[in-house]
């Protein structure tokens, strides 16, 4: 393995996985050459100093997230690893094409379900019973007009690299994917603490997200309204992603509102201001469907706006993302996405799924449960890594319990081949060790589709761990998409 002056990378051993910085012979991959050199110049004390600099910066700015599983919902400082992830321009272009393709097909599917003839269901591409039994399928959304048929304006598609380094989609998030604020703040923190790292690279910037999102939302105004009144709807300061909600409103230059700031009158939505009521055209909501309108959905919710569904039906306001996107976040629909791409776009998927067994198919179930100790079982309705069983890390009683649960409720589970996520050097005490990671790029769709360069790289903090979720102890990395090389 590589020898460096300070010894940070000595004993670096990523054998058994695809390491993005080093090939199987231990040689540095081209794109990481300068970064590895730079880190080789650092010693453990300097690393500690830089880590403290970054943590202090995040603490000062209050860049935190809330962990609900802990008592009283603790606010934690956002964890970022200093060793960045690099993606070469050509590699990114291919990935971005694949992401655009996937989101385009999913938008077609949602438009078909909610405003079309549900052709994919009628043609048997996705079983009707599966869609109709999805908790995320929202019958109330049927017939609500959506400009440009863009049901998903902001998508976060989780991708991983397998043992061969190929990108694969692990999960689709088309409801309220979060994490973009951390992408931008990670970059800002890296630029402050490690500006010298950037010197050798042309890195695509990240601070334009607010403009991209705003132009996307502007294009979603009902009736093509010029200069529409846009608001960001948050559940409030106690929500784990409140920091992100405030970030989005500030970076777009629009108001951050709570449900109690909005009122519906005559099928129109207004903000309550000191000068009276002001009409709203576009709501970028960061609360779930169930909480949007207590009249139509959960009557006990105080987060939403009574009458909002009526305003949506009247077409006086657009809610982004649209109602009912949860049906494609249902992991039961995930195995059908490649087929949906072929069906709607007539093209082969650019990024494959991870091989998935559908538990409602008796043959697939039998096969998967027979070797569950090698596979990963996921509940279809969960996110954030909750409820996931990783076969090789589970005990025999845990496996038995999972088998029984799956046999009892096959609709609620999928089982996937275990992907040995790729690794990158990450700081562990006084040296760099391989840690597994994934990537959540963000895809914006309004009048047109744009893929935001990079995305949120999440990294498992423990050696060998495949759990990258921040709610479960994962960290993050700044993600650099390199600009195309000038000839």
């Amino acid at each position, binding site marked *: 393995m590589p020898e460096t002056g300070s010894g940070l990378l000595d004993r670096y051993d990523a054998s058994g996985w695809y390491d993005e910085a080093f090939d199987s012979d231990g040689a540095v991959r081209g794109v990481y050459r300068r970064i590895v050199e730079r880190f080789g110049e650092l010693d453990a004390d300097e690393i500690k100093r830089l880590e403290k600099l970054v943590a202090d910066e995040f603490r000062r700015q*209050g860049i935190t997230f809330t962990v609900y599983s802990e008592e009283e919902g603790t606010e934690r400082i956002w964890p970022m690893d200093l060793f960045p992830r690099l993606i070469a321009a050509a590699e990114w272009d291919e990935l971005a094409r694949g992401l655009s393709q996937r989101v385009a097909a999913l938008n077609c599917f949602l438009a078909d379900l909610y405003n079309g003839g549900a052709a994919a269901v009628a043609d048997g591409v996705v079983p009707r019973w599966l869609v109709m039994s999805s908790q995320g399928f929202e019958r109330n959304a049927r017939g609500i007009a959506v400009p440009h048929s863009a049901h998903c304006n902001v998508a976060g598609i989780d991708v991983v690299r397998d043992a061969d380094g190929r990108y694969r989609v692990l999960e689709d998030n088309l409801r309220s994917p979060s994490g973009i604020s951390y992408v931008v703040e990670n970059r800002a923190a890296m630029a402050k603490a490690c500006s010298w790292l950037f010197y050798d690279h042309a890195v695509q910037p990240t601070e334009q997200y607010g403009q991209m999102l705003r132009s996307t939302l502007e294009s979603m105004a009902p009736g093509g309204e010029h200069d529409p009144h846009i608001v960001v709807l948050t559940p409030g300061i106690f929500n784990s992603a409140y920091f992100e909600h*405030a970030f989005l409103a500030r970076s777009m230059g629009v*108001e951050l509102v709570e449900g109690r700031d909005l009122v519906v009158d005559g099928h129109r939505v207004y*903000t*309550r201001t*000191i000068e009276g009521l002001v009409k709203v055209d576009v709501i970028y909501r960061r609360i779930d469907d169930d909480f949007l309108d207590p009249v139509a959905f959960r009557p006990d919710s105080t987060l939403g706006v009574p009458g909002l569904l009526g305003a949506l039906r009247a077409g006086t306001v657009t809610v982004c993302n649209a109602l009912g996107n949860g049906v494609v976040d249902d992991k039961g629909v995930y195995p059908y996405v490649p087929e949906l791409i072929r069906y709607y776009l007539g093209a082969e998927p650019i990024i494959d799924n991870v091989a998935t067994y559908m538990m409602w198919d008796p043959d697939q179930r039998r096969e998967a449960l027979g070797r569950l100790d090698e596979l990963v079982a996921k509940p279809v309705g969960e996110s954030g890594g909750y409820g996931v069983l990783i076969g090789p890390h589970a005990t025999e009683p845990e496996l038995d319990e999972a088998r029984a649960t799956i046999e009892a409720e096959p609709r609620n589970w999928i089982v996937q081949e275990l992907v040995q996520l790729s690794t990158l050097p990450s700081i562990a005490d006084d040296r760099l060790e391989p840690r597994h990671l994934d990537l959540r790029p963000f895809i914006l769709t309004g009048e047109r589709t744009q893929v935001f360069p990079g995305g949120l790289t999440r990294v498992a903090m423990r050696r060998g761990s495949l759990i990258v979720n921040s709610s479960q102890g994962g960290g993050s990395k700044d993600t650099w998409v390199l600009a195309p090389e000038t000839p």
Partner: protein
Amino acid sequence: MILARHAEALLWTGRYLERAETTSRCLNYAANSITHLRGDEARAEGELMVRTLGLQDELEAVGPLESQPQLVAFLLSDTDNPGSVVSAVVAVRENLRSVRDRIPIELWEEANGLYLRFPFLGHANAAPAGLHEVLLMVRRACLAIAGILNEGMRRDEGHAFVVVGRMLERSIFTVGLLEASHSDARGVMDATRMLRLTSSLQAYHRQHGNAPDADGVRRYLLHAPDLPRSVLSCLGRAEEGLTGLGANSAALDRARRKAALLRARLELGEVEEAMASDPVATLQDFAAQLAGLASDVHAGIVPPLAMATVQAQYVRPGHASGPGRAGGLGHAGGPGRAGGLGHAGGYEDEPGRAGGPDHAGVPGHSGKKVP
């Protein structure tokens, strides 16, 4: 255009910011002056300070202060006392957090940084320091926040509400201080102390020499047009802030008028004349008028439920007290208010008004904004 909820949060930000700074200043003075006093004197001293800060009710809940550490705990770190320094710091942070998208980043960072320096709030990295250092740190942070407000924030409605909040809080404190000076049987609230507690000693010396007399100082703290903590100056700035909110926010008309009325009474010498005969009642009444003004500002921004409600908040023509009715000064006022400033008009019986919210007076009475 500002959301009503944001306006409310910024108003309270202003009030709590002022309170954090004022309480720190007063506590620093009290902690120093109390050290050489005997037990009963020290207790009386502490109670005078609590009264000056308008926290009698909060003190009643915890019982009498027997020692200097108790006074310090009550005014500095008691999170059950909404008027303590820590409660005020928390409230500033929480209110700013809820408007984080519309304030300068530096403003949030400064308020968050101040909050993070209190280790008992669950965050590490606070350097242990003596009381004086802690209070100095709070005052400096408050001044830094005020500086960012002045220099880094757009002069929009949000800025106006912070200013109005600060000026209301400040004028309420100054009037409370003057009242305490008259009610103080032991005579310790002397001229120099009043000036120190309002950071006005140096200014007074320059203008009026270094032998201040109590009555002269009271006039100074009420009337000095160029003193940032005089009641007249505060009312002027509050009125300016309310006026800057524009004609569209008609629900604030009443507060604008009341601020102008109170200012006029000071300018015309009516308050001073009334104080000559019954200073305590006059000041108590003036304090009540200021609390009413705070209540009116709040009522003017509370989220209107619908257009109809907004309309109902217009004051009916001819109903408000015009100049002719504004008097009441010096006359034997209503029941139990002899010689007070009188009534500011028949607002209280106006239909559709939910009366003064109970946190109209000192923020210490508002549990609402304190988590």
